[in-house]
């Protein structure tokens, strides 16, 4: 059955996107820790469940969770994470693969993951083994501000860093297309600095605006999911593996009064049209009832002239079986760490430096314990002699 399905998908791939993408990847990042940020972990886990349901295998999902809400001692429902008050669906379930957890979720690791510059010791499961035929879905959630996203409450990644990393990916042929989704405060600023082709971006709120949590669970004791992600996930429940819904359908579903913030879209870097050109609510994006300000859509003008196939939601969320075995083999070699001596050196040498500077382990030239004392005594006697000589004047 699965085999058959794979074949169907292969056919579909050949038919619809010949020479385009052959595999799908997802990078899901929750960058904040602490119990009261439960909702951010739930956001990322909710996305994880959806992309997995739509067919991206665990081996192609990189999940970064900065904290473990499920095992937090404050969690009344130990081992579970829920994203809704009814607690019908345990997002943590029994089949979760968290690739980066806790203090591994750092800006450095995130950027290394994107650009593929890893230490040799990093296992394949922690690498983004994409190629020029990969479509990547990148989802970021946490506490952000204008053009930055906080990691772990002690460092932050700037929008420029991410833009540069994505551009490196483009130059290294590490993706075909990217769908970039951010749910933070002032999220739209995160995609404003992107400049590499093939990226479609969306965010939860305009600059100067907060994103809000959706609901509290009074047994868990904290907010369990953010509003924007909640409604995106709700929409995604209508999508299945064979769905023909387009990105335009997704964006047009944004309901500002419900979400509480003004989501934005950026399509000027993306070559394909978001959806049907005619008679689609997307044409009026951000102008409907409920929008307090006009919805931000960078690339609205360019949309009319775009040719090619419409961007389906499943282009990013679905699973495409890679067909070209030869290319796969070639890819593996391509993903070996870049020859970046400086990075390697710093990684290898840093622990050595730190240990030597804190532990007084190096012994005096002679290891005997009496000898230095004798030497010191001799020095003291000489010192005394000098003082006697000067002060008493032998």
């Amino acid at each position, binding site marked *: 059955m699965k085999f058959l399905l794979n074949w169907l998908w292969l056919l579909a791939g050949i038919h619809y996107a010949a020479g385009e993408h052959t595999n799908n990847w997802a990078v899901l990042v929750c960058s904040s820790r*602490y*119990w*009261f940020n439960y909702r951010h972990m739930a956001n990322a886990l909710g996305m994880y469940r959806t992309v997995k349901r739509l067919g991206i295998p665990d081996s192609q999902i990189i999940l970064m969770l900065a904290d473990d809400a499920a095992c*937090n*001692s*404050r*969690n*009344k429902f*130990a081992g579970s994470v829920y994203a809704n008050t009814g607690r019908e669906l345990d997002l943590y379930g029994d089949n979760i693969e968290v690739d980066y957890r806790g203090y591994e979720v750092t800006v450095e690791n995130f950027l290394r993951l994107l650009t593929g510059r890893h230490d040799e010791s990093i296992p394949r499961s922690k690498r983004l083994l994409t190629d020029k035929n990969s479509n990547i879905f990148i989802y970021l959630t946490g506490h952000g501000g204008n053009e930055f996203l906080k990691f772990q409450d002690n460092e932050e990644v700037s929008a420029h860093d991410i833009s540069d990393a994505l551009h490196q990916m483009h130059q290294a042929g590490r993706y075909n297309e990217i769908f970039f989704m951010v749910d933070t405060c002032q999220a739209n600023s995160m995609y404003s600095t992107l400049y590499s082709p093939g990226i479609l971006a969306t965010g939860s709120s305009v600059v100067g605006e907060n994103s809000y949590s959706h609901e*509290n669970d*009074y*047994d868990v*004791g*904290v*907010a369990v999911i953010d509003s924007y992600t909640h409604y995106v996930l709700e929409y995604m429940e209508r999508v299945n593996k064979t769905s023909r819904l387009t990105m335009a359908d997704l964006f047009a579903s944004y309901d500002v009064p419900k979400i509480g913030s003004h989501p934005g879209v950026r399509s000027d870097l993306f070559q394909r049209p978001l959806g049907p050109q005619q008679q689609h609510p997307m044409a009026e994006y951000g102008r409907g009832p409920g929008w307090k300000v006009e919805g931000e859509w960078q690339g609205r003008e360019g949309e009319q002239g775009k040719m090619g196939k419409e961007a389906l939601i499943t282009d990013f969320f679905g699973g495409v079986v890679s067909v070209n075995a030869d290319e796969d083999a070639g890819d593996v070699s391509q993903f070996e760490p870049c020859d970046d001596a400086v990075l390697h050196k710093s990684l290898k040498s840093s622990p050595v430096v730190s240990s030597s500077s804190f532990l007084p382990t190096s012994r005096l030239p002679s290891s005997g314990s009496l000898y230095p004392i004798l030497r010191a005594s001799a020095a003291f006697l000489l010192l005394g002699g000098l003082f006697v000589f000067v002060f008493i004047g032998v």
Partner: protein
Amino acid sequence: MNNRWRPLNFLRPAGDPNLARIKRRKALLSLIARRVSILKVALFIAGYVWMLAIPSSQLDRGVFIDENALQPGQVNTYWNWQQVHDADHFLSQLEFLRDSNATSEQRSQFIMNQFVKIGLSASTQDYEFTGVHKGVNGTNAYAMLSSPRVSGAEAMVISASWLSRTNEGDGTLNLRGVATVLAFSKFVKQYSLWARDLIFVISDGYMDGMQAWLSAYHGETQSNLRAQRLDLTSGVIFTAFNIDYPGHSLSHLGIFHEGVNGRLPNQDLINSFQHIARRTGVPVVLYDHKDEPEQLSWLPEAIRNHHEIKTYAAQARNLWRNVGYQASGRGSGVHGLFHKYRIDAFTMFALPATGPHGFYSLGRIIESTLRTTNNLLERLHASFFFYVMTNFDRFLKIGNYLPSAILISVAMMFGGLQVWVDAAWTKRQSEESKGPEPALMIWARRRRPVLQALFIMIGTHFFGAVTFFLLSSRWYNSISIGPLLLFPVTSLLPLVVPSFIPQNRSDSVAPLSLVLKAFNLCLSSTVISIITVLNFSLAACLAVALGIPLSADSLSSNKAVQMVKYSAYLGLGIGWILWGDMTKRMLWNWDVLGVWLLPFLCVVYFPLTLQAALVCII
């Protein structure tokens, strides 16, 4: 060079620019010097007016919660009638103990047994104070619930003292408070979501029991306290709630938050509690002020019912209580002892009433508040420690109350500097004038006896220290006429000072009294401004007590006036010694609880007034 065009040339007068600069500076300085008296008065007025304005609703603002992690009131509570039934059950047993006149030991043994039955590890602790307060002893009972899912490096305390805080521990029993803690310990045992250990303490007496327990917990030795070591210990205590429920039912929950030596808990804790309590449906008040103040009955109806006036009166009453607790340093209850160890704590006081609330509401509020503090990741921090609560939901930020005392202190400083400068000059007839016209008046410089003044000041502080040792000696406390002996001695002894100090009354030396006054004012000002950050209420009291009196004193030629002034200053400085009860209570606070008020009064405050008194007679 002066003809050259330069920007802003009109600001630069012609002539030597250096000379002009010096002239300008001199003019400015002389302006300040001439106006310093007015400036001083203005600062005093501003300071006192500001102080009076603190209770008004113009300066304060609504409370808010600063710490994200707290998330108050976001949980369902499961404390229910079953738990109320448990509490009632414990209460009836406690009442039986009360009626059978059980000793401290029997009581604590009973409480410990209850804890053990519930399934907690529990123990008791005997303590006894020695020295001046020999009779103070008792037995504490306590229990620990180890956090089921994390190592016990941190802890939270829920406590109740055997005596209620009603009238500062007048003997009213806190039976319902104890019953609540017992029932609550049984209740929380069912849950595994505690991120830190829970410690339940039933302390004996009013303050003394908790003092003994906390010193033992933190491994501190107090020379006059013999306390048994604790069998059970846990980690660092972050927060503590003290539950005080003396009545039959409760109508309001009162917040008592002032700690020993003027310390305050982090405001977030109080704010979370009042948020939760109001959500649960129980009205919250500050202290036990549930009725409107009655002192305003003499005012006409229209004014009395004016919103602003009513608010002012209510907030002024709250502030008055706050000053009483904070300035005296004794704190407003058992929670105050926790503050010494950097533990944020407050007392939930159940205002006695016939209804409508009881164990049911109280338990829910405690449960929710505990869940809130359980959410904390670390100690409450940020600088949310500097505040003055005017109501349970209103407070003043540091910038809105601190300047009042600082302004007065600055006025005193200006006064001191003015006297210092004045002391350097004398006006006399010129010797050179030989003509028929009257001799010219000359301002002549004179020497200031700095060292003598300094010796007098050091001597007065030393004298204050001796007074303190006398006051706290066992001998003094064993005789009933102690105050009547000590007061005349302390007030008459300084009279010999003028005969000791060789005074050079010549024209070329400034009078000692002027220099002493200058130093006295400057030192008082320094003391006031430094105390403001430690204990604002005390600083405000000092500013009121010392501000104008110390600025107004001067040497007079009339012996009688001198003596009247002298005795007035001494009355201000050491008169409190005559109130034996007050001194006894301060001594108890110092000896048992480590409250600094008595030594401060003796070693800092009394000498300052003594210096002012000496200014009158030297």
